[in-house]
């Protein structure tokens, strides 16, 4: 997925390109087409597919930061879920004073409110992420066992802190007025919020791809994933890069948390940890450290969950595990293996 070609001005010949691995990408449309005859009705299929895409985008938002942090820093953050919960709770900061914007029957005010929620949530989770990195994660670089334990500990403490600040009971959350309901085109029913979620997810994914593949900082990040010592030897402060990626990853989790919270319409401190199970499945499927793999994995898991949930509801519970097992049998390192450690 990572496009390794670098245009150089000095040499006339372009550097050899790494081959793009198309096979996993084809998996998604193949799956969608395969499901069509089983579902039968075309309009149901479109509804399910849109729902699956929306869910996939939200999972991608939550998972992308984690996989990037792992790829770059070789850190597995089991406390990532807390940023999701925190992002979700941060919406309350905005929704408190600006509740009127949500009630108003104006698309722009409603979208503005959503946008403000996202900005505030990302800011809060970014700052907390920086603190988390400094206090919890930094002393345990290099030891996976300690990382898992310590980030789990951070998760416990942070979840309890959310309880202490916002109370332990679930808080209901209302979607802004115009984002409720669904678009109906003929037989096809698409929930409005899901369409918004797909758009936001796509924008973030494209933005990340551009940042990683077309900018200097993206180049440094990709180089850091490949060989951190070499990047450091060339005079770049890889530590600063690490911290900024960690902060960005936390902020993305916060963004995912906002989207997830409006989707569920309830806030609980444990909501992040609940969805973390899906997030882990997705980054394992995608290949630890690969943003593109994470994207494909999210959509794959969400589509399968939606189709199976429609066809055989009992099976939906373990469909994710089945998808993961199949992918790991096919490619033990995930769809797009990145980190060669």
């Amino acid at each position, binding site marked *: 997925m990572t496009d390794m070609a670098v245009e150089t001005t000095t040499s006339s010949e372009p550097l050899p390109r790494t081959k793009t691995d198309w096979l996993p990408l084809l998996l998604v449309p193949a799956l969608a087409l395969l499901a069509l005859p089983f579902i039968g009705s075309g309009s149901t299929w479109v509804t399910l597919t849109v729902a699956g895409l929306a869910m996939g985008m939200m999972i991608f938002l939550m998972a992308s930061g984690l996989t990037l942090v792992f790829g770059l820093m070789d850190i*597995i953050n*089991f406390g990532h879920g807390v940023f999701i919960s925190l992002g979700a709770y941060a919406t309350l900061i905005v929704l408190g004073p600006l509740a009127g914007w949500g009630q108003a029957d104006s698309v722009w005010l409603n979208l503005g409110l959503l946008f403000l929620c996202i900005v505030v949530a990302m800011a809060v989770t970014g700052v907390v992420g920086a603190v988390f990195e400094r206090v*919890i994660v930094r*002393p*345990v670089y*290099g*030891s*996976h*066992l*300690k990382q*898992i*334990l*310590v980030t*789990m*500990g*951070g998760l*416990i*403490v942070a979840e*309890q*802190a959310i*309880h*202490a*600040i916002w109370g*332990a009971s679930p808080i209901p959350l209302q979607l802004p007025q115009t984002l409720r309901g669904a678009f109906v085109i003929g037989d096809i029913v698409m929930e409005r919020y899901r369409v918004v979620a797909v758009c936001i997810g796509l924008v973030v994914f494209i933005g990340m791809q551009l940042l990683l593949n077309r900018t200097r900082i993206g180049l440094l990040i990709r180089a850091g994933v490949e060989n951190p010592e070499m990047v450091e030897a060339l005079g770049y402060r890889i530590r600063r890069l690490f911290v900024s990626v960690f902060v960005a990853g936390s902020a993305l989790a916060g963004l995912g948390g906002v989207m997830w919270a409006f989707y569920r319409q309830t806030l609980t401190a444990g909501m992040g*940890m609940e969805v*973390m*199970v899906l997030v*882990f*499945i997705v*980054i*394992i499927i995608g290949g*630890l450290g690969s943003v593109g793999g994470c994207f494909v994995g999210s959509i794959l898991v969400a589509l399968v969950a939606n189709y199976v949930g429609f066809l055989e509801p*009992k099976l939906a*519970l*373990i469909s*994710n*595990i089945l998808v*993961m*097992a199949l992918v*790991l049998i096919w490619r*033990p*390192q995930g769809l797009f293996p990145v980190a060669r450690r």
Partner: protein
Amino acid sequence: MSTSPALPLAFDETRKSGGALSSILSSDMPRSKALTFILLAIFVVLAATPFLFSGSQPLSTAAKICVFIVLVASYDLLLGYTGIVSFAHTMFFGIGGYGIAIALERLGATWTSVVVGLLAALVLSALLAVAIGLLSLRVRAIFFSMITLAVASAMAVLASQLSDITGGEDGLSFQLPSELRPAFRLLSEPIFGVSINGRLVAYYMVFFVALLMFLLLLRIVNSPFGRVLQAIRENEFRAEALGYRVVAYRTMASVISALVATVAGALMALWLRYNGPDTTLSFSIMIDILLMVVIGGMGTMYGSVIGAALFVLAQSYLQVLMDAGSKALAGMPVLPNLVHPDRWLLWLGALFVISVYAFPGGIVGRLRQTKR
């Protein structure tokens, strides 16, 4: 992999020849006066609880401590001795509980159904442990943590959805074999003013099975097999280079640990006469186990005794203390919330993080350092 000097290999320096106690404890002595004293105290109190305290509350706490000692010790075999983090330990705990519960409910309250339920649970646990191990330990140890988390949560959802079999969220209540019921009298005369009824028999069954399991685990970690596990923990590649098949050893360790956890789950269900998602299967129990192992001391079986005893006591009695603190701070803005009795996990979580940094050997490691 970094070396962790605070988790020392149990070197043979302490292996003294002879001694009945030494052979019961597999030559793995506590190696600290304070630790010996605490362990002895816990042992004596647990053994004599029915005669020391009256009422059912202390007996239940003691039984819970016994069960959790086994559960935590079996988890320590994975985490402390082999160096892999599993989040599926409650799954095996739950399988044990459900095995007993389903068998006793369906097949009637006989000892045969206890045996059938336990055997079925053990077989299922072993199969699952092998499957997870072979799928994930092949690649990287870190996969194992994530995959166990995923499988365990799927299992929890499955248990709550298949309500025809498992009773769903309500769980299953069942009758025990007549020898374990409160109405049963083993001796007609009370001893020291305590009547020897079925409840007492049940407690001592839990106590002795737990003791047996603990000694068995102590035997395993001090066997050549246990030494290989510790070698894998310290340096995977060197162990592989020496000719040990790391994957096979890790899978074996996870199977043993799963089987012991299953037994612990069965004990829990037998004691409670009930099994449900909240008592054996929930993720919060997994977090409790992690806290107990790390606070007690990773890589020492004795750590699990201290961790479990401390944690279960804290669960019951720390809240009382915090309630008092919360009332004292009433009127301040956020502070009363921080010491609210429901927030006890916050402080244990902080203690957990601090112990991972500052005392990787937990309480046991600390005691051994100060008093040689």
